[in-house]
């Protein structure tokens, strides 16, 4: 290596609104009890969220300056041959000259991509999102969680990579395959012994050696456990005494798959003080262990921790089954509506739609979408509109209803006119409704969500939706 490894400049984490109360859910499955978590919460993606939108949301706050490279990491990416990193470039309104790459293959892919970016000292965004399918009743259905995380790398960040090590090991703790999308798991006792003893612990110890520190010097850990409760054994084997934020995260949100370790890293960074060493370990078909020295507060870490406590607890197991795709509810004839997106139309409007780019006319009025002749009264001819990104701007509900006739996978269908503070007015879907729903004047924030799903052709489109500007605080 001819240059210093890079550092982490900022982190991001995003969780969906709903948190399923596992204990309540377990009561719905009387035979449930052969394994899996039965306490804490499981973060549940809305019908209109997927691995891509979750990753995009996690990334929004850390791309104020455009990165040179974007990497999308997931094992549940919606597309097989369509790069989500390129979609991220549009969703985050980044330059088309951005280098892009999707990684997958195991839950470890995001950490592996992060290590590569750091070793290359790249100015990169690693964005991970996960919404993994699981069979109802399986331990993983409640153990998994949906969420996104992101890391921005650079050369002068607050957390410097000081040690690292990798282990490649095809351990069949669980796997998913084409035609078998849900995980098939091996015996837990076998996983605990092999994963902990021969893969994770050796990688951590090798990373410590490279960093020139003793395991006991590690103050905070973000070690992705293959199974809950393994940290105690790994800590014993390595001599680490630090708490594992990845275990805490799994308890509160579920295992976020490829997004898990990076989210946990944000929590560890939030707890760390200058001078502390933080351990990150990603697991899956091997292990990548990274050790950081934290020199200052890492931007985004506090926000990621705050996101843990913001959500809406739910005990509605049937709704969870439907949202997680484990139950195919019959929504009637109205749900048969065809929503085919044409490639030619996406080529013309896709980037502005995904990036929520409106236009400012000659008199300063902002509108979406852009049109040749602006919507401003009195405009009589073509005007060149200046691009305005609306995704991060404040807005309020101008009119709204809960439409119970229109089809949506999670009724009712909320929509209305949304008034942006900059003057733009847009008819939009609203999402993440709380128990009280929406009313005129409610403040909104924008969320990137699935707009349409074309099951017949395996296609989906994305657009932004209005969501409550603030989320409720979960009860402790």
């Amino acid at each position, binding site marked *: 290596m001819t240059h210093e490894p890079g550092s982490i400049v900022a982190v991001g984490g995003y969780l969906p609104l709903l948190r399923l109360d596992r204990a309540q859910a377990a009561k719905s499955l009387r035979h449930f009890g052969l394994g899996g978590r039965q306490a804490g919460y499981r973060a549940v993606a809305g019908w209109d969220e997927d691995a891509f939108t979750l990753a995009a949301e996690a990334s929004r706050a850390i791309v104020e300056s455009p990165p040179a490279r974007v990497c999308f990491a997931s094992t549940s990416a919606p597309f097989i041959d369509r790069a989500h990193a390129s979609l991220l470039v549009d969703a985050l309104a980044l330059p088309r000259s951005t280098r892009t790459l999707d990684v997958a293959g195991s839950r470890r892919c995001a950490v592996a991509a992060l290590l590569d970016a750091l070793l290359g000292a790249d100015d990169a965004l690693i964005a991970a999102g996960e919404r993994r399918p699981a069979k109802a009743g399986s331990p993983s259905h409640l153990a998994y969680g949906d969420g996104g995380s992101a890391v921005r790398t650079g050369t002068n960040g607050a957390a410097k990579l000081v040690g690292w090590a990798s282990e490649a090991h095809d351990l069949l703790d669980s796997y998913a395959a084409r035609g078998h999308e849900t995980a098939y798991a091996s015996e837990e006792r076998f996983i605990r012994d092999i994963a902990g003893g021969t893969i994770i612990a050796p990688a951590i110890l090798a990373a410590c050696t490279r960093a020139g520190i003793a395991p006991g010097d590690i103050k905070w850990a973000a070690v992705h456990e293959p199974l809950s409760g393994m940290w105690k054994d790994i800590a014993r084997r390595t001599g680490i005494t630090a708490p594992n934020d990845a275990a805490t995260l799994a308890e509160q949100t579920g295992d976020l798959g490829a997004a898990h370790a990076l989210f946990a890293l944000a929590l560890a960074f939030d707890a760390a003080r200058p001078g502390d060493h933080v351990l990150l370990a990603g697991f899956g078909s091997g292990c990548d262990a990274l050790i950081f020295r934290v020199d200052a507060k890492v931007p985004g870490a506090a926000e990621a921790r705050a996101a843990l406590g913001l959500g809406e607890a739910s005990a509605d197991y049937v709704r969870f089954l439907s949202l997680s795709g484990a139950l195919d509810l019959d929504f*009637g*004839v*109205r749900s048969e*509506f065809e*929503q085919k*997106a*044409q490639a030619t*139309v*996406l080529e*013309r*409007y*896709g980037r502005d*739609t995904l990036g929520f780019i409106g236009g400012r006319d000659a008199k300063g*009025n902002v*509108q*979406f*979408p852009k*049109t040749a002749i602006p*919507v*401003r*009264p009195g405009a009589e001819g073509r005007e060149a509109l200046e691009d305005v990104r609306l995704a991060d701007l404040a807005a309020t509900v*101008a*009119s*709204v*209803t*809960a*439409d*119970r*006739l*229109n*089809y949506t996978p999670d009724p*009712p*269908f909320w*929509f*209305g*006119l949304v*008034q*942006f503070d900059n*003057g*733009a*007015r*847009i*008819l*939009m*879907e609203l999402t993440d409704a709380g128990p009280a*729903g929406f*009313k*005129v*004047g409610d403040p909104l924030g924008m969320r990137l969500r699935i*707009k*349409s799903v074309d099951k017949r052709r395996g296609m989906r*489109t994305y*657009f932004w939706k209005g969501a409550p500007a603030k989320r409720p605080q979960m009860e402790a």
Partner: protein
Amino acid sequence: MATGIKDKVAIIGMGCSVFGERWDRGADDLMIEAFEEAIGDAGIERSQIEAAWMGNALDDINVGNSALPLAHALRLETIPVSRVENMCATGTEALRAAVYAVASGAIDFGLALGVEKLKDTGYGGLPLRTKGLANDLWMPYGSAPGTFAQLAGAYSAAHSLDGGDLKQAMAHVSWKSHQNGALHGKAHLRKTVGMDTILKAPMIADPLGLFDCCGVSDGAACAIVTTPEIAKSLGITNPVVVKAIQLSASNGWEMGYGEWDGASVRNTQVAARRAYAEAGIKDPRAEISMTEVHDCFSVTELVTMEDLGLSDPGRAVFDILDGKYDRGGAIPCQTDGGLKCFGHPVGASGLRMAYEVYNQLKERAGDRQLSRADFGLTHNLGGAPFNSVAAVSILGRLD
């Protein structure tokens, strides 16, 4: 200098099929049903019709595109037939086209026919349709009640209503229409319904309950038009004439520019203002005898009363509760039951409204006959409050 359409065209025949769930009839049967009544009423030969316009809003559901379904159903021989479509204003558009053709002198006899066969969709409510490939990328697919429910919310907010009075007034709108529809043998819904039932109905789109929404129907309606002079030559001494037909359409202002408060429909206001001017109506509250308005939802009728200038802004709630628009009130509205109860086969509705006004003006309305029927107003509203086409027609007698 344009002089408008007033008194230039007479309606000499009208027909209307039975509206409703016409399981045993196809679109062609419905067209024939309406046409046979109209041609019999007009007293002319079918061969005298020189051009026809077919109004059909949802061609992909059943009837088919172009106007050929009309030519086929009626076996019209090689005359020009054209299809017009402007959402729920489609029926009035068909009438407007025929009226303008006669007024221009291009033809002596024109036919306007609106038809819709909605009950083959397999479900209630209007079908969900694409909004265009580019719009589909971002625009929500709200249902019709979903779009008009927002009118209710914005109206409440604009006039500081607590919702209770509005809900009562909306219920009264539907109650009144059921009272009237029960008297019409061709209406889709012919039962009276109590206020309590209306108020306790399941919610469709907040705050619109089931009885705040019109259903969708199968049906057709038809008009035959000519010049007043020809009408008189046919022995019609005091023909019903068109006093005004006006349209106003959104250009995106309501939903794309932050001025509109959502509590009214600008296109109705504009179309009404133009129609009154065209018809020479100076004081609509005194001169308009009756209205047939686009009560797709109860709140639409309520707000329309203000947009037509028949109630002051914010006062329609109280005028409605005072009975001003009941059949025995000062300006009866929906004497045939309206969209709510007569039914709403979209492309036919504008002509169905004209059919009721025509029958009232000719004193043929039976149990529904009003003691005073000088000027009757019809109002169609296509689309959504924030993106609409409004059509306002005024019919009266020549003298």
